[in-house]
């Protein structure tokens, strides 16, 4: 990549600087008009793209068919929380998702460190293995795991799905952590080794301490995957009070397909946590997790 960028290291910039001031002034008026055209275009596209999300939010706060309220209302939300197990589902989702995030990062960070620092065949083989595993359809593991977990009493159990979520986020999470650790210069660690620090010590005290952005991106990735999962939940969860939100929303939707305002109120409950996470941490958000890691490594 860098070779392409600096193909003409001498000739390019020298010519560019001499003329750039003039060009910029000439461009400015036409440029300004172009900017506003592009603004209008992107605004139109964004509005169209977000229609499904806006519809969800609007309906959630619109009075239902049997309601006497008018205008904006929290009635649907209140109905959903009073009439269904929404609070339980929300709690179940939060518990499984947050446990997944914690354990996944705790497993992926040390493994990512080995992947980043180790240069042996075994380490690169493990890295390939992780890549292959993340590309396999979860449906293949789900059936054998269902049988195994049934024998262990882990079907219809939040611990059961949490274990699967950790397993399925861990592969990509390890890659993401490794890619981040690659960016931490080993000279920092060498300094601590000279001071008598062990490798484990430098990992926890030097590398981890400087890896908050990498840990946060990995955590966001695991959060979204666990929060949004439907396939594992539909296979492993059976009873209403063990449902996570995807199952709750879906079962409620199937039973009350015409009561759109309530369905959407529940949908908003489910949508809110990922949007809050995204809104507060979006600078650490890396789409698809492994995408950035692959591109970066």
């Amino acid at each position: 990549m860098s070779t392409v960028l600096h193909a003409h290291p001498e000739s390019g910039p020298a010519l560019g600087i001499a003329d750039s001031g003039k060009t910029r002034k000439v461009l400015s008026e036409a440029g300004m008009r172009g900017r506003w055209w592009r603004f209008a275009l992107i605004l139109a596209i964004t509005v169209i793209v977000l229609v499904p999300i806006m519809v969800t939010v609007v309906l959630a706060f619109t009075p239902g068919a049997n309601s006497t309220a008018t205008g904006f209302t929290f009635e649907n939300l209140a109905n959903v929380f009073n009439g269904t197990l929404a609070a339980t589902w929300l709690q179940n989702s939060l518990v499984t998702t947050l446990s997944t995030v914690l354990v996944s990062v705790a497993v992926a960070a040390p493994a990512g460190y080995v992947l980043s620092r180790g240069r042996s065949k075994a380490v690169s083989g493990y890295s390939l293995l992780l890549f292959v595993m993340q590309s396999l359809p979860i449906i293949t593991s789900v059936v054998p795991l269902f049988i195994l977990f049934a024998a262990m009493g882990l079907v219809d159990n939040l611990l059961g799905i949490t274990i699967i979520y950790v397993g399925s986020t861990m592969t990509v999470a390890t890659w993401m952590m490794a890619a981040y650790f690659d960016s931490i210069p080993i000279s920092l660690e060498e300094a601590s080794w000279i001071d008598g620090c062990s490798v484990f010590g430098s990992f926890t005290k030097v590398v981890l301490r400087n890896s908050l952005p990498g840990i946060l991106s990995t955590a966001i990735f695991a959060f979204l995957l666990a929060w949004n999962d439907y396939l594992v939940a539909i296979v492993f969860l059976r009873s209403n009070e063990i449902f996570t939100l995807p199952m709750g929303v879906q079962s409620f939707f199937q039973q009350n397909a015409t009561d759109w305002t309530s369905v959407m109120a529940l949908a908003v409950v489910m949508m809110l946590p990922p949007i809050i996470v995204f809104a507060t941490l979006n600078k650490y958000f890396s789409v698809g997790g492994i995408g950035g890691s692959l591109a970066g490594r």
Partner: protein
Amino acid sequence: MSSTTATSGLSRARRGVAPGGSGAVPGKRKSKLSAQTTRTFFWLLLPSVVLLVLIHGYPLIHAAVQATHDGDLLQTGNFVGGENFASVLSSPAFWKAAQFTLWFTIVGVFGSWLVGLGLALLLRTRIPAGNTFKVLLLLPWVVPIVVSSTAWNWLVATPDSLIPSIFRGLGLGTPLFLADPTLASITVMVFKVWVSFPFMMMMISAALASVDTTVYEAASMDGASKWQQFTQITLPLIARSTYISWILMTIFCVNDFPTIYLLTGGGPVSATTSLVVLAYRTVFQDFATGPGVAIAFLMTMTLVVISVILYRQIRKSSVE
């Protein structure tokens, strides 16, 4: 993990980054540190390996067993050899699902890439509040599929939904987006593109951000047209990340379950049944565990081969 390779690896890594340091470390101390390093690496990797074996390794082997037996979800049953594979491979439903998966993947990958590329190029220019749009346009990727599929259902499912009503108002008839087999396939694919384009947009934006803009100034001074700049400069510069994003999106599309299942359930008349949906239905609705796992296993084998080949190529391109 062999101890010698791992330790020499670490010291090589250290030498690579800080060439001055390697000579300064006395040989004795280095080897002590190395043995210790290997042990540390082993413990650091152990939890990950255990999980990988439990959640990925064991199920894969067990799936191979199930695919060759006539059992159900409770017992393994009798060994039937390749019978399940034979019955799957000779069933029209399998090939129909394979065909749908192929189209779904092609449209999903290239549709989302084109939309993502267009938006990434647009957002790269100076636009008022450009960053806000960038964040807002990522929402389809962030919002749970359960939620967005519900919203799409509200928009298109019945003749009185919003979008069919708009079509009717424009005198274009009343399209049955989820009831007509062809239209349902198209709708699911459009939904997939809607969900996935932010991924492409983000990947391409990241690649574009590292491009030095003076390259373009030089090119336009040399008389290159906008189109030439796009094909000669932009595309080659984002080629690597484009390639990676195609691979990953292919994997995401082939493995996709909720996007299809939640919008159409695989219908109407199995028109939108992909291989994963077929495997799910075969196991959990028809209770034919053997054939269902055989379908999943065939997909798995195909994906293992594809991903190993592609991984090698990505690695090769990163060395260059």
